[in-house]
C-alpha cells in the first residue's frame, strides 16, 4: 500500500522533510524494536552455540566471557591506553589526509592547468590498493608512527580529493552565471559559490575517509606496533586469547559507527541549509 508519505517524492520540496519525519516518529519505538531484533537474535544464537558446547570455547568464547574480558581490559586501563594510541593515529592521519586532499581538490578544481598536471596522477594512484603500499612504506619510513600515520593520511586523501574535486567541477553553471551578474571577483566566487557548493561532496568523501582510516589502521597496527587496538589483538592471538580478540573487534565496530555518526552530526550542522533533517 502506498501511503501519502511515500507518494511524496523526497527532495522535490524539502520544506516538508521535517513534517514527514515527525509523522513517522509515531511508530519510532516499533521501528527501533524491528531494527534491534536482528542483532538480538544473533547474540542469542551465539550464546546458545557457545554455552551448550556446540562450538568449543577455545574457538568461540561465550558472550559472558567476552564481556568479562572487556571489563577486565577496561578495569586495568589497558583498553583506554590502546584506544588512545589508535585514536591518535587515526586522528592525525585523518587531519593531514583531509588537508592534503582538500588542497589538491582546490588546485585541480579551480585551475585547468592544475587539473591537467595533477589529476591524471591521482586517478592512476587511486587504482592501487592502499594496503599494498605497506612494504614500500616500511622501507621508506620505517616501522614507527610516521609510517602508520602516513598510510592513514594517504588512504584518507583519495576519497576526499575525488569527491571534493568532482563537486567543484560539477558546480551549477546557473550559479556561476549569477555570480558573474552580481559582479563577484574570483576570490568572492570561490568563497560564496564554489566552496559552499562543494561542501556536500566533501562530506561524502569524509565519510568514506573515516571508514578507510580505521581500515588502514587495523592492518598497520598489526605489524610492528607496541600499542593500539590492532596491537592488542595481535598480542592476544599469540596468547590464544580469543575473548580479547573479540573485544578488539567490537571496539573497532563501535569506533566505526561512532565516528560515522560524528561526521553525520557535523555534516547536518554545517549543511543545515539543505533542511534534510
Amino acid at each position, binding site marked *: 500500500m502506498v501511503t501519502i508519505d511515500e507518494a511524496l517524492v523526497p527532495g522535490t520540496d*524539502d*520544506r516538508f522533510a521535517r513534517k514527514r519525519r515527525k509523522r513517522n516518529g509515531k511508530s519510532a519505538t516499533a521501528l527501533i524494536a524491528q531494527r534491534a531484533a536482528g542483532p538480538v537474535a544473533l547474540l542469542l544464537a551465539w550464546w546458545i552455540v557457545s554455552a551448550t558446547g556446540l562450538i568449543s570455547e577455545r574457538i568461540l568464547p561465550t558472550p559472558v566471557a567476552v564481556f568479562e574480558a572487556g571489563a577486565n581490559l577496561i578495569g586495568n586501563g589497558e583498553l583506554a591506553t590502546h584506544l588512545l594510541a589508535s585514536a591518535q593515529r587515526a586522528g592525525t592521519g585523518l587531519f593531514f589526509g583531509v588537508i592534503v586532499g582538500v588542497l589538491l581538490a582546490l588546485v585541480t578544481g579551480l585551475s585547468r592547468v592544475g587539473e591537467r598536471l595533477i589529476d591524471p596522477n591521482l586517478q592512476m594512484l587511486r587504482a592501487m590498493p592502499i594496503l599494498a603500499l605497506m612494504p614500500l612504506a616500511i622501507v621508506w619510513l620505517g616501522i614507527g608512527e610516521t609510517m602508520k600515520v602516513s598510510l592513514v593520511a594517504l588512504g584518507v586523501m583519495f576519497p576526499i580529493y575525488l569527491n571534493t574535486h568532482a563537486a567543484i567541477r560539477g558546480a551549477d553553471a*546557473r*550559479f556561476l*552565471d*549569477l*555570480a*558573474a*551578474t*552580481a*559582479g*563577484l571577483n574570483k576570490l*568572492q566566487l570561490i568563497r*560564496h*559559490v564554489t566552496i*559552499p*557548493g562543494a*561542501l556536500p561532496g566533501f562530506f561524502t568523501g569524509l565519510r568514506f575517509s573515516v571508514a578507510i582510516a580505521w581500515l588502514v589502521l587495523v592492518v598497520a597496527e598489526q605489524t610492528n606496533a607496541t600499542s593500539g587496538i590492532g596491537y592488542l589483538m595481535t598480542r592476544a592471538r599469540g596468547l590464544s586469547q580469543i575473548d580479547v580478540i573479540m573485544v578488539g573487534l567490537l571496539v573497532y565496530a563501535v569506533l566505526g559507527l561512532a565516528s560515522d555518526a560524528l561526521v553525520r552530526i557535523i555534516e547536518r550542522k554545517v*549543511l*543545515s*541549509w*539543505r*533542511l534534510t533533517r
Partner: protein
Amino acid sequence: MATDTVTPTPHATGKPTEARHATAETASRTTVKVRALSREFDGRGVLHDINFDIRDGEFVALLGRSGSGKSTLLRILARLDDEYTGTVQAPKRPAVAFQDSRLLPWKKVLANVMLGLPTRGVDGTETRARAEEMLAEVGLTDHAKAWPKTLSGGEAQRASLARALVRRPELLLMDEPFGALDALTRLRMHQLLRTLRQRHRPALLLVTHDIDEAILLADRVLVLTDGVLSLDLDIPFPVVGRRRRPGFTELRDRLLEELGVADDDR
C-alpha cells in the same frame, strides 16, 4: 504621446529606431544600443542582425515564441555570452532577474539579496539597510533570515527581484520573472515593478510570454520571431488604466497575430 488610437510602427529589421524616439522625446540618451547583432550555436543561427535601442528609463517588453532567441539575447546583454557578432553597448553591470529565482541555497535570504555588495564598514551598513528596505517592499521582511529552500515559489521570485533591484541598476534584465507565479502574486509584482520603476527609473527589458503583461507594463514591445526582430512597437497608452483604453484589444490582437496565434475568444 498618449493617443487613443493604436499606431503600430513596425520596423523592418536593420532599420535604426532612433528617428522615432527622437521625435517622441528629444535629447534622451540610450542605455542599450544593439547593432547588427547575430549569434550562432554550432553553425545554427539563433539571432540574425538584431538592431534596437533602449533609452534611459525606458521599459521594453520582449515577446517571442519559445525558442525564438529571447534568453540568448538577454544573456548577451547581461554579458554572460560574448560569442556574438555585431556591436552591443550596454551598462557594465546590468542587474538580472532569472526565470528561476536562482537564490544560493546556502545563504539566508538577506545575504542572497546582498550578494556581491559590500557587507562591511559604512558601505556595508548602508547596503544592509537598503536590502532590508527592499525586502520590506517585496513583502519578505519576515523571511530575511530564512533559508531559500523554505520559501514558496512566489516568495523566492520576489527575493530574486529584490536582489536585482537593490543594486539600483541602470539596466534591469528580466527573463520571464513572473512565469511561475499565480495570478494574484503576479498582479502584486506588476504593481511593485511600477512603483519601483518610478522610484529608481532603470531601463528595463522584460522577457515575457504574457502579452497582457507586456501591454500593461511596457513603453514599447519588441517581438522576436525565429531570431529576427519582427516588430518594434510603442505602447501609446498612459501608465495607468491601460486595460480600459480603447485600442487595447486591437493592440493585443496585433501582437497575437505577430506571434502567430489567433485568439478565438474575441
